[in-house]
């Protein structure tokens, strides 16, 4: 499982600063307010998607179906894999109509 040690975080969220050094720093109630993207899930991946932009038609099916919110769209409208988060499920490659995405084994 992905464990997150509280003391490693110092992020602003929901107007609260959350830096947990001691028990006193913890909120009275267990209210979690650090956005989860401080956690990287790249280590889950065995295969990484590689987009061949020459074949990409910017249909955004890959973006639409990504369960990990790991595909962004850059300023020129190209899909970009956020490799810190991609778990390598392969849905993007499977659903890509022009076959522009290949799953490549990680080292």
């Amino acid at each position, binding site marked *: 499982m992905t464990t997150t040690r509280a003391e490693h975080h110092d992020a602003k969220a929901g107007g609260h600063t959350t830096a947990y050094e001691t028990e006193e720093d913890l909120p009275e109630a267990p209210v979690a307010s650090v956005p*989860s993207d*401080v*956690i990287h899930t790249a280590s889950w991946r065995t295969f990484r998607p590689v987009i061949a932009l020459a074949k990409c038609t910017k249909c955004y099916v890959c973006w*639409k*179906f990504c369960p*990990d919110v*790991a595909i962004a769209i850059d300023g020129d409208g190209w899909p970009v894999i*956020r490799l810190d988060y991609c778990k390598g499920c392969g849905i993007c490659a499977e*659903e890509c109509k022009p076959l522009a995405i290949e799953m490549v084994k990680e080292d």
Partner: protein
Amino acid sequence: MARLTIPAEEYMRAGHSACPGCGATLVMRYLLKGLGPNTIVTVPACCWTVIGTPFPTTAIDVPMVDCAFEATGASVSGLRAAADAMGLKDVTIVGFAGDGGTADIGIQALSGMLERRTDAIYVMYDNEAYMNTGIQRSGATPRGAWTTTTPVDQAARGKPEVKKDVMAIVAAHKPAYAATVNVAFPEDFLKKVERAKAIRGPRFFHALSPCPPGWRYPPEKTIAVGRLATDTNVFPLYEVEDGTYRINRKLGKAKPVAEYLRAQGRFGHLTEIEIAEIQADIDTRWKRLLALEALG
């Protein structure tokens, strides 16, 4: 830039703890895209308890209130009452529960919430078993499916009983709105969420949520398997508004159920005869649905 077919705004964050290819994350992602930021979600024990990431992190950009396994409907009513009492305007209250938490242990609270007409949206994301605990059968597990508590062996053929028809139970409460949605059809999903958002009163979504480890298919097939569920009439897309049924996707000729079943390891043991029985059952239910729609 080509046009996006669903809203660009994201209210679900990366970094969550779902299995690769998880359908339940897409249910949340699409739902929040449709509902927007003025939303509060309450979640009982289910995969999302874990997907939502451990303290101090959280995977959605709207408030989430954890509640007891069997009490989502009650939590929804409490949040709505407090929002009303405190003058929080236009906030959408959402109960977001799995099939076990809805069809089994939580059905009493769901019934209560529907009956007292709480102005809120209840979403059952249906992965057809207790997946968070490791694939035990639920009332929503379909007939014939292997699970860890409905093994396949000399004297057992997976789950012998048919899937509980939660939509029918919900419809019997005459909700303001009820619809089935499927992560393989995001545009239909979003259209219905936007429709539901505009309605007051109790609203319900039955969201098909394919699960790679639980259904035993490779994670890249989540959308393909989900699509097959609808295109074989196993999981028809329809909505019920003021008692009127409307089917949202009808194929000239549905695909054979075998295509859907054969794509998943949990049905790998089924014989031709068993598949034929399931096909007959699906055909009957489809005809019933057509008849309900014809009632107008």
